[in-house]
């Protein structure tokens, strides 16, 4: 068949000469290479004590954002749950009552908002689906735990801390 691209390279396979067939020189060469690595700089990062810089587009734990006045942005529209390929998000919506304007930005808000971190594949589609810019995957690595139920993160773990400026 005609090759579609010219990237194919035919390697020439010469029969090995005596030294190559002996294998030993090649093995010694390899051993010298590995031995040199003993004195190279170690790449290990001692994780809990030191943390590596995350890259720009790192996707970690979710956080539900607040706006400039410290109100929760999420309006429980359910688009994130719909877009989630792993069906990790569930929520219960509620209507904002009088006097709660400082807490929630829209008239409808998520009374319960849960993400199952065992289901989530950290694809970031929820982040993209959100019309209110309310959810971002900008947190750290989701920590390990012992029980399945502890991996279902509710609003207590997801919602951002209220702004310090607001409090005082």
């Amino acid at each position, binding site marked *: 068949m005609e090759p579609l691209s010219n990237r194919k390279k035919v390697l020439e396979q010469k029969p090995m000469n005596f030294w190559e067939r002996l294998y030993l020189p090649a093995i010694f060469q*390899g*051993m010298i290479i590995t*031995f040199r690595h003993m004195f190279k700089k170690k790449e*290990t990062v001692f994780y809990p004590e030191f943390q590596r810089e995350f890259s720009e587009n790192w996707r970690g734990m979710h956080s539900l954002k607040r706006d400039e006045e410290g109100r929760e942005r999420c309006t429980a529209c359910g688009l994130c749950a719909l877009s989630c390929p792993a069906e990790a998000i569930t929520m219960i919506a509620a209507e904002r009552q009088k006097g709660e304007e400082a807490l929630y930005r829209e008239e409808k808000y998520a009374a319960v908002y849960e993400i199952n971190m065992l289901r989530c594949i950290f694809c970031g589609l929820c982040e993209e689906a959100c019309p209110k810019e309310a959810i971002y995957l900008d947190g750290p690595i989701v920590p390990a735990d012992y029980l399945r139920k502890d991996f279902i993160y509710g609003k207590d773990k997801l919602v951002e801390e209220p702004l310090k400026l607001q409090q005082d």
Partner: protein
Amino acid sequence: MELAFIIEKFALILVIFVISLTIAAYSTLAERKIAGFLQDRVGPNRAGPGGMFQPLADGLKMFFKEEIIPTESSTALFILGPSLALFTSFLGSAVIPWGQDVEIAGRMVSLQITDINVGMLYIFGVVSLGVYGIMIGGWASNNKFSLMGAVRAASQNISYEIPMGLSIIALLMSTNTLSMKEIAEQQHGINWNIFYQPLGFLIFLVCSFAETNRTPFDLPECETELVGGYHTEYSGFKMGAYMFAEYLNMFLASAVMSTLYFGGYNYPGMDWVNEMAGSVIGPFIGMGVLILKIFAFIFLFMWVRWTVPRFRYDQLMNLGWKILIPLAIANIVITGIVITIFEKL
């Protein structure tokens, strides 16, 4: 038999038992550390300072793991397998001469458990027995991968025993004795056998890699093809016994190689040191030197493991039967010719 003799031997056995246990346990740590170093990592470092207590933690973990005995297996043989593997790997160190005779309270105490007339053959026999542990365990698991691992182990060990034995024969021709002690004594100072038998040593080295089932010849436990090889069905302490047996075998192989080819407890300038240190400390320095040599060999084993990839099975058999055996026979012939020429001169 006098009481002193029994006490002395008993103490020696105890000491060597403890030493080999410790070395084998710390080999597991060393293996992981060296693997780390060779791959630009640091290896385990959490348990104790620099990971010193890692072997203890591992042992504890092994004990507390669930022991699973497959229902379709033959229980007695399933337990016999790892026990036999561990048992045979302890036996070999009985004939290794650990040092020169020590003079304690007017008695000459030999630092060798027993000097049997056929010491070298004894080691050979113990090594060939070691494969039973693997075979029985692999068969008793009633699992096709285990069985395949066991069968591979058997054929590999038999194939590599032959060149190993032949390379020993060439060594025998130049040393004229089978006793480990005499062989060690002949290599006084720097008169080591490696200078007379370089090819024989190379063959012996390759074969001992194969006999201890270490990479590049670890086909019996080859994970990529056989899940876990002969110990697929093993868990908990029985699995630990197999692992431990492997490290003990490595220790024994290193001790044998140091004794046969690298002078054992001999080192250049030992007469002078012995004179300075007296007849009690001197031999123990020799013992230390032997243990250093053993460490060097253990390091070599690990170094090769983390460098050379595993052989394919047919390559393994080709190497054993078509290269090593003819080489070993050629080595015997050359040794014979050289010895006759030197005797004529």
